[in-house]
């Protein structure tokens, strides 16, 4: 195997996916061999409403360049209402992060159902591209964690 020593910037992206819709959507993308950049690393959570703003800030602090949160479409939440709370929370959180000068393209919420494998791949493709274009995220990084 050859080590690929390209210097091209590859962003680090954390994707939180709810177990019932979006994680299944990601699995479906896999089943259908729909490719998307490997920069996306998925963390499985029971519901999008499990995602604490702290997790998102923590990711940026530790060097993530983008964070995307995927949940069931509004109205389809496995737990009936979780994603409605997610929608309010993330609307406020992302708006606040942008207010502090964090590029708003670095954070995103997407609704991806278990049937939307193609959408999952397309969304990840697009998000990775957008984040890569912004370059490294510096504005919320904790310098000490870099050592």
């Amino acid at each position, binding site marked *: 195997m050859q080590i690929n020593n390209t210097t091209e910037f590859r962003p680090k992206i954390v994707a939180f996916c709810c177990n019932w819709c979006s994680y*299944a959507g990601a699995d479906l993308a896999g089943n259908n061999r729909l490719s998307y950049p490997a920069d996306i690393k998925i963390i499985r959570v029971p519901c999008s409403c*499990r995602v604490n703003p702290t997790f998102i800030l923590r990711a940026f602090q530790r060097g993530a360049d983008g964070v995307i949160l995927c949940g069931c479409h509004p109205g389809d939440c496995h737990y009936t209402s*979780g994603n409605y709370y997610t929608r309010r929370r993330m609307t406020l959180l992302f708006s606040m992060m942008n207010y502090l000068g964090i590029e708003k393209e670095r954070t995103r919420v997407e609704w991806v159902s278990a049937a939307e494998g193609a959408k999952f791949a397309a969304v990840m493709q697009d998000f990775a591209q957008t984040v890569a274009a912004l370059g490294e995220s510096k504005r919320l990084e904790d310098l000490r964690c870099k050592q």
Partner: protein
Amino acid sequence: MQRIGVFVCWCGSNIAATVDVQRVADAVRSEPGVVFSVDYQYMCSQAGQSMIVDAVKEHQLTGLVICSCSPRMHESTFRKTAQLAGINPYMVEIANIREQCSWVHKDIFIGTQKAITLAKAAIAKVNLNTPLTSGESKVTKRALVIGGGIAGIQSALDIADAGFPVDLVEKEATIGGKMAQLDKTFPTLDCAACILTPKMVDVAQHENIRIISHAQVEEVGGFVGNFHVKIRKKARFVDESICTGCGLCTEKCPQKKVPNAFNLNMDHHRAIYIPFAQAVPKVAIIDPDYCSMLKNGKCGVCAKVCSVGAIDYQQKDEIIEEDYGAIVTATGYNPISLEKYDEYAYSLSKDVITSLEFERLTNAAGPTQGHLIRPSDGKQPHTIVFVQCVGSRCAANAEKGKEYCSKICCMYTAKHAMLVRDKYPDTEVYVFYIDVRTPGKSFDEFYRRAVEEYGVHYIKGMVGKVIPEGNTLKVQASDLLMNKQLHIDADLVVLAAAIEPDRSARPLATMLTASMDTNDFFTEAHPKLRPVESPTAGIFLSGTCQGPKDIPETVSQASAAAAKVIGLLCKNTLKGNPCVAVSDEMMCNGCSSCANVCPYGAITYESKEFRMPDRTTRMRRVAKVNPAVCQGCGCCTVACPSGAMDLDGFKNQQIMAEVDAICK
């Protein structure tokens, strides 16, 4: 410190083709906690699983990371393997290196790098895993059915037949519900009473069913398997255990002017009455608003004529408290109020009636003994206009009416039209419709018979106005297909009023913490896959309280709900999902944020005394999660500002460890 074993699966070439599995196994060997790592062709195979069991024994592993396909595929398999090996099944984490890695990344270098990162994230999480055990709770083997219409009757009978005691609560004095008021049923034209009343008798005679009529649920506590319910049985002033239902009192009572609700107030009964001949329980009841004995202590005729001494003017409401394992809601529907529909002159003319009133008018046991006559003058109508979708399928922003289709009106109107033409062939019958909807077995044939065999005039278009003029009702309407205005002089206008959930449903839903939609229909746990369950565990939905339905559909849903109840009551104990929220009472503020967002009502509060560092004590309100009710969504953990609420299996620290591992 955990002793973690990492098992990297090739999945044949599914993973191994684009992920260098050996490299993954090597790369994670020096991760904190990892004491063993290996790759193998098929981890999920018998041989792969024994390999895991052996490794656990040999290396005294306390946690497992399986790098394989999606946890949605084989998480439960590997949890069972862990259990076989003698470690807690929740000490297993899966790194999804197939669906989310090898299958979507073509480059082996990139795929391997990502697989290593995913494995490290899973390792970081397992390091913080703790053994979890499902909570167990006992199941009370008794069911409560709320609502004694055909839905409640069917559910109660099915559950009782399976051998479980059932309490059937009905707010009226008799069970039977709307179906008891109907004349014939579509599409077979059976007489409703002929098929319903034997079922009512079955209920009355069933050794496992207790009917609690003239009663309502007042308080619900507890959770699936263990509900505690308070039921108020309202005073009927007649001792149910003694009354024989002979009916003598209902003939002798001097107060004759009590509107007969069963006949939709189209005639009168006495102040003491039996709702209808086949009522169950067949016991008299006194209307305290009309009885002069109860109002001013003068009369007492019924007590004098009652040969068994069943009349009890002193009777008080009774509170029945009982435990149940499951609750079925079958609260049914009502036609909407037509107060706001003056364009159809419903409140202006006695000869504009609802379809349900029409049922009573054509019912042999109804106020006219089945003779179809005009309520105003008792004459036989010769031209009848039926108007469909009155209050159904309205625009979302309309000031009145419902957005949904009431579903049953097309069919019962076809039935009404057909019956009229059959019995009174000289009557002209017009039906105004937006669309005729007839999905269902033998439904479209039925409707076409009305048009083709019975010559009912079906006109696509809406009625704009009904104006009472002398003895006739001037109906102004449009025929959309012919594109012309119509004026019909009708003798009787029948409105197919939209149906809406009974008003008692909303407060009941609040007591049950069951969710409802904006129209006050109960919401199902999943619209396709769990249509008879409420999202609140242990609550089941039967009949029109969940959405508009006809009788066959109601009965099938009632039986389906009963089957679900029986499945639940067959269990001696319930094992919950161990990944539930837990509250740290030392940190809890008691602010109720968590309870506000919990969709299941799993969180309650208690006042608890805490010892403070200075040896004083302090009372504090703290949250308690009922693990039998919690479904583990984790919404509360984010609503909680102090971080007192956490979710087992997906703890804050575990998720942050994954974040850290990925961002490293």
